[in-house]
């Protein structure tokens, strides 16, 4: 049985995560004026998150400017001013910032301990089989129940595809942890499944986090 209070206290003791923004591709780097350690950052805003977060950098490649925005709120810890104005390769560290965990993130952390996680058996790209994929797209993952031995994934490595069966307790898919066309490392969670006997506990987790976690502005 998960001790939600203990887990919450542990997260409260260390409520930040530090993230690094790297260059998604090559290009000439411009860091915006005024950005410096200590600068407060905001994430996407608006009803549909249509307004991007704070501008962190711009990459100019083949006459196309790509703005790199902060994906969530936080505070700049470090930025790579040495590369200002130069051509950077992909994967270069540009900005580091620290971020106070949001309710959703705390909930995700706790649910990862409460749900039954089905882990990636190999480093590969994963897809749901077409029937499951359609259901999830139309009604969301919680509309899909899975049971032990059911073929619900396609595992794709080196352009070869193989069906993959879920193993674990029967339940609804409560969380999906992989993205389309992205590699998942061995042992990373693919889905979180909530068995019927855990539903009450999971609902309790959601309520507790909603009530007890105070987000910082």
């Amino acid at each position: 049985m998960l001790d939600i209070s203990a887990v919450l206290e542990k997260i409260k003791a260390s409520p930040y995560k530090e993230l690094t923004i790297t260059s998604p591709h090559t290009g000439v780097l411009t860091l915006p004026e005024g950005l410096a350690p200590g600068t407060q950052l905001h994430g996407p805003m608006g009803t549909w998150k249509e307004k991007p977060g704070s501008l962190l950098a711009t990459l100019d490649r083949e006459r196309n400017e790509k703005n790199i925005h902060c994906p969530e709120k936080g505070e700049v810890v470090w930025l790579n001013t040495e590369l200002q104005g130069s051509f950077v390769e992909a994967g270069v560290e540009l900005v580091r910032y620290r971020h106070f965990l949001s309710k959703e993130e705390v909930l995700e952390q706790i649910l990862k301990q409460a749900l039954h996680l089905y882990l990636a058996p190999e480093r590969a790209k994963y897809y749901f089989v077409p029937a499951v994929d359609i259901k999830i797209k139309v009604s969301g993952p919680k509309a899909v129940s899975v049971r032990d031995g059911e073929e619900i994934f396609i595992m794709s490595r080196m352009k070869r595809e193989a069906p993959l069966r879920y193993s674990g307790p029967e339940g609804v898919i409560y969380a999906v942890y992989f993205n389309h066309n992205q590699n998942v490392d061995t042992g990373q969670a693919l889905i979180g499944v909530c068995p019927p006997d855990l539903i009450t506990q999971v609902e309790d987790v959601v309520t507790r986090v909603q009530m007890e976690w105070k987000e910082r502005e």
Partner: protein
Amino acid sequence: MSITNHKVLVANRGEIAVRIVEACIQLGLEFVCIHTAEDAASGHVRLAREKGGKKSLYRVSSYHDANELLAVADDAEATAVHPGYGFFAEDYRFARRVSQRDRKLIFIGPSWRVIRELGDKINTKRLARSLGVPTVPGSDKPIYDELEAEKIARSLYEFQRQQGIESPMVLVKASAGGGGMGIEEVHDIDLFRSVYRRIRNYAARQFKDEGVLIEQRIRDFNHLEVQILAERGCANIVHFGTRNCSIQSTGLQKRVEVAPGFDPSAVSYSFDAQKVLDDITAHSLAMAREVKYDNVGTWEWIVARDGTPYLMEVNTRIQVENGVSAAISRIKGQAGVNIIKEQIRCGLGEPIGYNQEDITFEGVGIEYRIIAEAPENRFSPWVGRITKFDWKQEDWLTMHTHVPTDQPYDIPTEFDPNLALGIVWGNDLAEVRLRGLNFLDNLTLEGANQAGEGMKSNIAFLHNKTPHILLF
């Protein structure tokens, strides 16, 4: 402009990138390599660090991103792009963009118009038929409609029955696929729809194009190729003989290539093998002249049991197996032919500098594709860490690999698990078979995956196939 003033962007990875760099070094050309995060330990990266000049190595987000390649080309001041095989090698839009942008670069491959005309399997078939060249029966365009696909499949079954074929079969192929990926055979029309849907969904996921080709599956065939080289302007076109690529995986991917395509001096065929080789070479050259071909290319043929050749497709790029043709070729009597080097020279505008009469052939060559896979399990790829990779050096053996031999190497999961190409040469078929077996016997390949299971490779498969090469 002398070709030595050029700097070549090697827009590829692994073994072919290594070979392109080696060819550039032989020609005295500067080069620049690219790599992704997953490929940091690849041999082409190390080669670029050790042998490259200023601005000779860049990390990029993807080999598939044209903006990325061209941005690197500009920053490194490259003047030409070698696409290798795969990725952008047969993408006419990329070739056109490279040669028409403000800062123009030379695309080391056929001109974009030629790629557009021949790179499309459908156009190639139409052109071949217009020249009287036989082609594999099947759909003339990518099929996107299930009912139309089924109609074509039914007609192909009917056609084969009329030909007296007892177990007719059709191939369902992803139109945008290649290298044997996205191909399945169907022996029963009742199963056709499910296979069609599977290939269509696979093609959409892997190639972003749902188009599917339906073709007659010719059983009991040999897969032959003709290697062509043409200079810019098409004033001179030569060939470097034929290859036999019939030893394939269950997914129709090549595993062993042999040059020449048949050896009537050592093997008895039920048809005039020399005439077949002469015919497919003549047909390939005729098509190349018709389209004004202007770089390297490979004409792929299926030869049926009765010796009838059918054109399958034209690969408008350098092939993996170019080295086995080079191994048996002599230019003005000299060995050491490097078709990639010839491709770069001609691509940069030099004339070929010799004629067909100057090219002779000597002996027999075998190319082994050494791959981390389990042939006993439908050639499923093996992923893990290679801890030992070694072979016995011989003067009749050439190895091409990007896998380091002095440190462990983790096979990236993003690409095919091809590890190396071993090219063996012999004076005749008997000798090359013996040398091939000798090479494989002395090859060490060890490793383990995350579960601690030992490495799987196709070495035993290659060994078992060696006595059967060039037999029909």
